[in-house]
C-alpha cells in the first residue's frame, strides 16, 4: 500500500500523518521534539505507521464479524499492551545508557547500586502502569519515565543518603541520549507479537487481523516536511513546505468551509486566510517577539508547578478573571507572583493570562484581514479549554456569531497539510 507522509517538526512536538492514495488518514504519530531532528522525525513517523497498522487491524476486525464490544475491547487491550512493550524496550535502552554513564564516572561509584534499584523498580511497575484503566500523565517516554524515575530517586536518595541532584543529573544526561536512538525497523512486529502473547484469552479474530495487518507492505511513496525546524529535515528542498501553507490546507481538509485559520503553536502564532480550495490568500505571523505563544503557557505551568494540560481546566474554573496586560513570557512570571501576593486566586490569574494571549492573537487576526466564516483554531493551544473559551468570547464580541471549528486532532493540522502536498506532488509527478 502506498503511503504519503507529512511531517510537522514543531518547536515543542513533532507530528507525522500518513495518508493512503485516496487521501484518507491511515495513521498519525507525535513525539516531543529534541535536539536531533532526524530522530524526532523517525519517531513521529514510526508512531504514525504504528497507528496506521492499528487502523488496518481495526479494519480487519470489522470484517471478521466480531461484535462491537469485543472488537473495541480487543483493540484497546492490544494498544495498551503494545504501549507497555514499547515502554519496556525504551526502558532497557535507558538502563543500558544510564549504567554506561555512571560506570564511566569514578566519583559516582556509590550511585551504581542506587541506580540499579531504581531501574529494577521501574521495570517491575510497568505492568501496573499499563494495567486496564490506569491513567498515565503522558505517553511520551521522556515524561512518563521521567516522573517515575524521579519519584523512585527521591525515595532512594533519602534512604541511601545520596544526593538527589546527582540522580536528576544522571536522568537528564541519559534521556538526551535515549531520545536520540531510533527504535529501528521491526519494532511494530516485535511489540505487537509480545502484546498478543500477553492476552490471557485473545479472540481468534485478533490473531488473524494482526497477522494480516502486519503483512500489508506500507511503502512511503512521498514525504513533505514542514514546521519550525523544516530546514533541517532530511528532505530535499522541494519536499519542504511552509507551515503557513500546510496549516491552511490541513484546516481546509478538516473543515471544508474554513476561511480563517488561527494556529497557536509553541513559538509562533499564525493567522491565515484561505479560499474555498484551502489556498492561502494572506497570512500574518508574530514578528520580532514570540510573546503570547504556546511557550508562554508552558512557562506559566512551570512557575505554578502544574502540568501544561492542567492549566486550561483550572483557568476555566475562574469566576472573576484578573486583567493581565503583559504577554511577555518572562514578565508573566513576575506578574503571576505579584498577583498571588495580592491574594488573587490562581484560577482567576490563569484565566487572565489565557485571555491576554488570546487578545494578542486577535490583533494578529485583525492584521491578517479579520475572521471569516468558518473559523478554525489549530495548534497545541487549541486543546486548552480556557484558551478556547476566551477566543470564542472575543470572536463573538468582535465578529459576531461564527462557526468555530476545533478538531480533536488539531495538533496534526500542519502534518496533514504536508501529507496532502506529498500526495499531490507524487500524483502530479506520475501524471
Amino acid at each position, binding site marked *: 500500500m502506498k503511503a504519503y507522509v507529512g511531517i510537522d517538526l514543531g518547536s515543542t512536538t513533532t507530528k507525522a500523518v500518513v495518508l493512503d492514495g485516496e487521501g484518507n488518514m491511515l495513521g498519525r504519530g507525535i513525539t516531543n521534539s529534541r535536539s536531533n531532528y532526524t530522530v524526532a522525525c523517525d519517531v513521529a513517523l514510526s508512531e504514525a505507521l504504528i497507528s496506521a497498522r492499528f487502523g488496518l487491524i481495526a479494519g480487519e476486525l470489522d470484517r471478521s464479524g466480531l461484535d462491537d464490544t469485543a472488537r473495541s475491547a480487543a483493540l484497546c487491550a492490544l494498544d495498551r499492551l503494545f504501549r507497555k512493550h514499547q515502554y519496556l524496550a525504551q526502558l532497557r535502552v535507558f538502563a543500558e545508557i544510564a549504567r554506561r554513564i555512571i560506570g564511566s564516572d569514578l566519583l559516582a561509584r556509590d550511585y551504581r547500586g542506587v541506580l540499579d534499584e531504581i531501574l529494577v523498580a521501574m521495570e517491575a511497575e510497568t505492568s501496573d502502569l499499563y494495567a486496564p484503566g490506569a491513567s498515565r500523565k503522558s505517553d511520551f517516554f521522556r515524561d512518563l519515565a521521567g516522573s517515575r524515575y524521579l519519584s523512585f530517586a527521591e525515595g532512594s536518595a533519602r534512604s541511601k543518603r545520596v544526593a538527589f541532584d546527582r540522580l536528576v543529573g544522571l536522568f537528564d544526561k541519559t534521556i538526551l541520549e535515549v531520545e536520540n536512538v531510533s527504535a529501528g525497523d521491526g519494532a511494530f512486529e516485535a511489540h505487537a507479537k509480545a502484546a498478543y502473547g500477553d492476552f490471557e484469552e485473545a479472540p481468534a479474530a485478533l490473531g488473524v487481523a494482526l497477522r494480516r495487518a502486519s503483512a500489508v507492505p506500507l511503502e512511503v511513496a512521498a514525504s513533505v516536511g514542514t514546521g519550525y525546524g523544516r530546514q533541517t529535515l532530511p528532505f530535499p528542498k522541494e519536499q519542504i513546505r511552509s507551515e503557513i501553507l500546510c496549516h491552511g490546507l490541513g484546516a481546509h481538509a478538516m473543515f471544508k468551509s474554513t476561511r480563517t485559520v488561527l494556529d497557536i503553536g509553541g513559538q509562533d502564532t499564525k493567522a491565515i486566510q484561505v479560499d474555498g480550495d484551502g489556498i492561502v*490568500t494572506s497570512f500574518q505571523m508574530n514578528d520580532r517577539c514570540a510573546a503570547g505563544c504556546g511557550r508562554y503557557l508552558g512557562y506559566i505551568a512551570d512557575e505554578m508547578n502544574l502540568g501544561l494540560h492542567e492549566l486550561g481546566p483550572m483557568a476555566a474554573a475562574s469566576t472573576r478573571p484578573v486583567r493581565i496586560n503583559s504577554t511577555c513570557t518572562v514578565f508573566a512570571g513576575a506578574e503571576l507572583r505579584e498577583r498571588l501576593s495580592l491574594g488573587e486566586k490562581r484560577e482567576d490569574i490563569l484565566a487572565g493570562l489565557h485571555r491576554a494571549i488570546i487578545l494578542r492573537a486577535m490583533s494578529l487576526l485583525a492584521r491578517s484581514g479579520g475572521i471569516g466564516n468558518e473559523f478554525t483554531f489549530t495548534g497545541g493551544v487549541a486543546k486548552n479549554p480556557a484558551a478556547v473559551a476566551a477566543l470564542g468570547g472575543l470572536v463573538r464580541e468582535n465578529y459576531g456569531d461564527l462557526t468555530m471549528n476545533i478538531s480533536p486532532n488539531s495538533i496534526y493540522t500542519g502534518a496533514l497539510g504536508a501529507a496532502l502536498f506529498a500526495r499531490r506532488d507524487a500524483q502530479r509527478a506520475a501524471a
Partner: protein
Amino acid sequence: MPRSDETPATALKDDSQLQQKTMIAEHYRRLARVALTGEKNVYTFVPGNLTELLRSFDLLPVLPEINALQSAMRGKSRDYIAIAEKLGHSEDVCTYVKCDLGMMKSGNVGPTGEPLPKPDLLLLSYTGCFTFMKWFEILKAEYDCPVAMLHVPYQADGRVTESMRSYVVKQIREELIPTLERISGRRYDEDRLKELLRNSARAEDDLVFVLESAKHRPSPIDAYFGGVYYIGPIFTAFRGTEGAVAYYRALRREVEERLAQGLGPVTPDGELKNERFRIVVEGPPNWTSFHAFWRMFADAGAVVVASSYTKVGGVYDTGFRHDAEHPIETLADYCMGCYTNLGLPARVAMLTRYVEEYRADGLLVHSIKSCNSFSAGQLMILREVELRTGRPCGFIESDLVDPRYFSAANIKNRLESYFQMIEQKRAGGVS
C-alpha cells in the same frame, strides 16, 4: 546609495559603479578638506532635498540618513546606537537618528574613513517626517549652527495645488535664498541654478529608463536591492552635477545592453538566471543585513521589479522632471512630491499600478519598526492593493539600521511562506 566595504554585491560592477564610487569618494574628500578650502556645507535630508539650489551657491550637501545607512552596512550601527542609547535616547527612537548621533559622538568619521565637517547650516526642506525636525533640534544643540526650515504641505488629496506651491515658493524666495546667500557669501545666481536643473532632468530621464526596464521579462535589474545603488547619486549630493549626468548615461547603456542580451539582474551571487517571482516592495530595506536579505530573494528566484523606496527622493516615473524654466516652482514641487509626502490613497494607487504595469506576482511590505512616517498605514495599503489586484501580498518587519530587529530565521520563514503562497496560487491549489 549605499557603499559597502563588503564585496560589492551590486548589479553595477562596471563603468557606472566605478563612476559612482569615484564620485562619492571625491565628495567625502572635499568634505574632509573644508577647513583648508573654506568650502561650506549643509546637512540636509534625502526627501525633498534641494541639491541644485545648494550647489548653485557652491555649498556641499551632507546627508545624515545616508551616513547612517552606510554605517550600518559597515557593521558600525550597533555600537553607534548603543552610544546614543547611553545618552538617553529611547529604544523606540528612529535608528537612523541614533546611529547618526553615535557616529557624531565617535568623532564624526564618515563612510570613507575621513572626518565629516561640522555643518554650516541645517536645512530641513521636508517636514512630513516629524523625526527630521527633532533630529535637527538635537544637531542644532550639538553644533550651535543656524537652521533653515521649509514648511512643506502634505499631499492629503494626492495633488499639489497652486496655493501649496506658492506657499513653498514664497518660503524658498523670502527665507531660504537669503539664508543661503548669507551662509555662502554669494549672490543667488538663477542662471547657474537653471543649468543644474537642466542636468537634473537629463539624469532623471535616464533613471526612469533604468527603473522601467524592469517591466521586461526577465527584468534586467532588481529595482530594490539593485535599485538602491541606482538612486544613489540622484537622491543625494550629486543631482544636477555633470558627474550624475554621466553616471546615469553609463548606467542606462549598461541596462540597455542587459536588455538586448535578455539577461537577468546581478545579485550578490552573480546573475539571476531563473526569474521565478516578480515582486513589488513597499518600504525601505534593512541595511544591517542587506546582502543576507537580498539573498533570501535571490535564492528563491525572486526579483523586485518595482519599489516605493526608490521613490523617496523623487517620484520621477509619473512624469515629474526638474524644470529649468520655472526653477523655484520646480523645487517647490519636488519638495512636495517625494513618496512619503503622498497621501495614503496616492500610495495605494501607485503600488497597485506597479503590480499591474510590472506584471508582478504581488506586493510585499517590509515594515520598519522605528519609522512611523513610512510604516503608518501599511496594513491598509496591503489590504487595498490585495483587493484591487487580486494578487497575494505579504508583510515582514525589521528595522533600518538596528541589527537587533533583523531576525534572519523568522524573516526567511515568512518570505518562504510568501513565495510558496504565490506558487500555490499559480498552481491552482490542491483539488
